[in-house]
C-alpha cells in the first residue's frame, strides 16, 4: 500500500475534527486557532492533489494574514460567555431548520450527481517537472484574462470603499510632518545668545 491514502485519511480526520471544534469550543480564541488548523490540513490535502500553488497561497493568505488580524481582534474582545449561551433552547428549532436546509443544499451540489466518480475521475498523476503554478498562471492570463482583470478591479473598488468609509477629518488632531522634521536645521530651533558673564558676590574668598 502506498503512503498517500494513509496521509489523506490522517489529514481528513484532523480537518473534520478541527472544523467541528471551531463551532463547538466556547473560547473564541480557541475557535480561531482550530480554524487555522483546519486551513492547514486542507492545504495539506491540496498538496496531495498536486495543487501546490493553491495550498501555499491558502496558508499565505488565510493563515498568514487574515487569521492574524482575526486573532488580533478576538484577543482584544473581552467576551462574557454566559449571555451568549442564553436562549439556546429558544433558538434551537430555527438553528436546526437552517442546518438541515444547508445540509440538503450541500448534498445536492456536492452529491454524486455532480461530483460522482463518472463526472470527477481521479486526476492523472503528473511528472516531477509539472508546475501547478505555471499552469494556473498560463490559464489565468490567457483564457480567463478578462474575468481575472474584472476581479482585480472589484477588489480595488472594495479597497477604495473601505478606505473612504473609515476616513474622517479631525481638524483638532495634530499630525507631524516627517519631511519638515527631517529638513529642520539647527538654526530653526536653537538661537545662540551671547551674554556677559554675571559677576556675583564672591562669598568664599
Amino acid at each position, binding site marked *: 500500500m502506498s503512503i498517500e491514502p494513509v496521509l489523506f485519511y490522517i489529514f481528513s480526520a484532523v480537518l473534520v475534527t478541527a472544523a467541528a471544534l471551531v463551532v463547538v469550543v466556547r473560547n473564541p480564541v480557541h475557535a480561531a486557532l482550530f480554524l487555522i488548523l483546519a486551513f492547514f490540513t486542507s492545504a495539506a490535502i491540496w498538496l496531495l492533489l498536486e495543487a501546490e500553488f493553491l495550498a501555499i497561497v491558502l496558508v499565505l493568505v488565510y493563515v498568514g494574514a487574515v487569521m492574524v488580524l482575526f486573532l488580533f481582534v478576538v484577543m482584544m474582545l473581552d467576551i462574557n460567555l454566559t449571555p451568549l449561551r442564553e436562549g439556546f433552547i429558544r433558538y434551537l428549532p430555527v438553528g436546526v431548520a437552517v442546518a438541515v436546509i444547508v445540509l440538503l443544499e450541500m448534498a445536492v451540489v456536492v452529491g454524486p450527481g455532480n461530483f460522482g466518480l463518472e463526472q470527477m475521475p481521479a486526476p492523472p498523476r503528473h511528472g516531477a517537472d509539472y508546475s501547478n*503554478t505555471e499552469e494556473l498562471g498560463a490559464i489565468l492570463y490567457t483564457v480567463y484574462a478578462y474575468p481575472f482583470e474584472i476581479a482585480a478591479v472589484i477588489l480595488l473598488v472594495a479597497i477604495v470603499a473601505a478606505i473612504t468609509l473609515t476616513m474622517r477629518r479631525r481638524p483638532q488632531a495634530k499630525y507631524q510632518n516627517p519631511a519638515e522634521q527631517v529638513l529642520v536645521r539647527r538654526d530653526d530651533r536653537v538661537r545662540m545668545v551671547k551674554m556677559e558673564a554675571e559677576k556675583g558676590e564672591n562669598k568664599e574668598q
Partner: protein
Amino acid sequence: MDILLAIWNSIPEDIQTLLVIILKIVAIVVPIMLSVAYLTLAERKVIGYVQVRIGPNRVGPRGLLQPIADGIKLVFKEVIVPSRANRFLFLVAPLLALAPALAAWAVMPFDDGMVLADINAGLLYILALTSLSVYGIIIAGWASNSKYALLGALRSAAQVVAYEIAMGFALVVVLMAAGSLNLGDIVRAQEGSLIHWFWLPLLPMFVVYFLSGVAETNRAPFDVAEGESEIVAGFHVEYSGMAFALFFLAEYANMILIAALTSVMFLGGWLSPFQGTFLESTFAWVPGIAWLLGKMAVFLFLFLWFRATFPRYRYDQIMRLGWKVFIPLTIVWILVTGVAILGELGPWFD
C-alpha cells in the same frame, strides 16, 4: 561494510527515502542550531567591542564556551506557568515560533543542486512560512494572561503584518526579474558577474527586503515587541527557562534565515563574486556554499551592527515607514522592473 550495505538494501525503498530525508534534515538543522548558539556569542562580542568593552571572556578560551554554559543554565531553570494562563498554548507558543524558522530551510539552495526540496514554488513556500512566525508571538502574548505580554503581542502582530506586505512585494520583483519561483533558478538567473546580481537593478528592493527582514524578526531598531524600557520584555515577559530560550533560538534562527534569503535573492547565493573577472579561475576551488556563508555573515554582522548603533524606532514611525514608504516604493519598483523587462534593459533583462 558489506554487512551494512546488505542491511541497507533489505530496508524497503520508501523507508530508505525517508531515512535519507531525515539525515539531510539533521545535516541542515544541527549546523543552524550551532550557528544560533555562536551568533549569540558573536552578538555579545560585537556589541561589546562597539561599546569599547571586551564581552564574555570567562568560560573557555576567549569565552568560546559561553553559549554552551548559557544553554546548560537555561535547561536547568524552572519553567513557570503563570496562574490562570492557558497552559497548553503557553507551552506550544515557543515551538510555533521556532518551527517555521527551521522549516523554511527546506527549500534553501546551499550550492548548485544542494537543496533538500527542490520545489518549483520555493519562493511562495518561503513567503508562507515567514508569515507564520508571528503566531508564536501572538499566542505567547495571549496565553500568558498578562497585560504587558498582550501589548507586546499586539504591537508585534501589527508590525509583522505591515512589513510582510513590503517583503512580499519585494520578492514579487525578484520573481519578475528571475522569471521563476524556484530559489535555485533565481540564483542561476544572476549568473555572470558581480553586476549581474540582482542587488544592482533591484537596489531599492534589496534595501527594503533586508530592512523589512530586520523588522519582521523584531530586531533592533524595530524591536518594539520586546521594548524592555516600556513593556519590560513584551510578549515573552512571563517565560522562563527553556521556553524562554526557545524564543531566542527562534529569533536568531530567523535572523540567519533572513540573511540567507537576502543573499540568495539579491547577492547571487552560492555564486562567486569573482565570476567573469580575471580572478575567477584563481578562486575556482572555493565551494559555492562558502560564498553563501560569507554573504550571510555580512548580513548577520549588519544585524548586530544595527543593534549596537541605532536607538529604538518610535512605534508610529515604524508604521509610517512600513506602510507609507516601503509599500509604495515596492509597487513603483514593480512597474519600473516591468518596463525594464519589456525594454530588455541589459545586462540583466536581455
